[in-house]
């Protein structure tokens, strides 16, 4: 019976450790997807001049849950006949992956879509993409540093609790 309890403790702490590690993986993935989304926007706008609603409508399926949620929120807003506003996007997008400023920055990116002529729009997207690439590389470093650490820490802390109980 005791062995089962010890195993359960180790399982729980390891699970938490993997959960925290996953947070860093997902952050990196989100920024990576934002870069890809930016490239998609550039081609859809620069080549086909597609309206933003049309680009967003089919975009959600191509990306992971967090970015897909923001794309869906934006698409829904446009469908309601409302422009993409930073405040409204910030309120409606329920993500836990980002800090306040990071979330605000991404919402600002979405809110500037469709607001200017083609050339300015593409330049803006390019600038945001650069920032997303920077953040992606920072997140990659964070992930390399913290992700394995939290995984190990989760397992080791479970082991430590078990030893303490013994």
């Amino acid at each position, binding site marked *: 019976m005791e062995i089962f309890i010890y195993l359960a403790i180790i399982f729980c702490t390891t699970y938490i450790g993997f959960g925290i590690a996953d947070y860093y993986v997902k952050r990196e993935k989100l920024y990576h997807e934002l870069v890809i989304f930016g490239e998609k926007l550039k081609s859809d706008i620069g080549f086909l001049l597609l*309206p933003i609603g049309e680009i967003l409508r089919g975009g959600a399926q191509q990306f992971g849950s967090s970015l897909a949620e923001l794309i869906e929120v934006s698409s829904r807003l446009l469908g309601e*006949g409302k422009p993409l506003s930073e405040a409204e996007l910030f309120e409606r997008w329920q993500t836990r992956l980002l800090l306040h400023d990071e979330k605000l920055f991404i919402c600002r990116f979405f809110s500037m879509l*469709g607001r200017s002529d083609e050339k300015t*729009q593409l330049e803006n997207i390019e600038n945001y993409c650069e920032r997303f690439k920077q953040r992606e590389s920072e997140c990659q470093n964070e992930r390399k540093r913290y992700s394995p650490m939290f995984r190990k820490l989760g397992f080791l802390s479970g082991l430590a609790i078990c030893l303490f109980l013994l």
Partner: protein
Amino acid sequence: MLKDILPKEILDNLRYKLEDVCELRLRKDKNIVISVMGKYVDAGIRCLPTWIDEIVLRASRFSIYTVNEQLKAGFIAVKGGVRIGVCGEVVPDGQVIKTIKNITSLNIRNPREAIGCSDPVAERCFNGRLNSTLVISKPGAGKTTLIRDLCRSLSRKNLNVLVLDERGEISGEAEGRFQFDVGSSDVMLYCSKQFGFSFGVRAMRPDVIICDELKGEEDCGAVYEALSCGVCVVATIHSGGVEELMQKRSFKGIIESGAFKRYVLLSDEPRPGSIKAIFDEKLETIL
């Protein structure tokens, strides 16, 4: 569609049915004026400054870049054939216009369909042989409505009709479908006349090319090219009459050459679309 671009407040307070409204004129902080059956009336609704921006954003489907080329020319073509004339502050970029900002006035034109309105014209211009025809009138007298109906009636005569729909007004294109009956015409959307005429003659082998609102020497040149290739051209132009048109340098030559075989003069009296006269190439009245 008009209802998709107007703010809810306007739709709720408008005393007329949208289908009856030919034109809406919005000026910042002024009462909205609407045109019903060719008569302007005060709608009794004060236009809030935010409404104009809202309408422009909605008309562009929240993507200004899709309409900026049109905006530079002072209008926005909305899906369904609605056209918005725009007035505001021009942003220059050297010799060219970059965009129009701080928009203060909008003139929204609601297109309509009048099946059969072109029958008298078809009878005199396309009976037996195809005569290139120029439809002349002041703005708002029903030129586009007339040529729209001509598209329908000519294409039903097993003719290859190519429509150069520069602003989507003739066909009323929305989401890839035509809101108006243009028969089995081939429709080239949102293209310049220069491109449309040269492309059309080469690629689509049309019997008739129909286009709206000729202006300037470039358009004249394109029309002349098509006419010299043996294609029948039906076009419209803003002018008070043939004499007035002769004063336009770029059109004088084309009229004198007899390239157009018929001239249809439209009037908005007693109602838009009224045929005032039809002339032949010698400018002799035939109706």
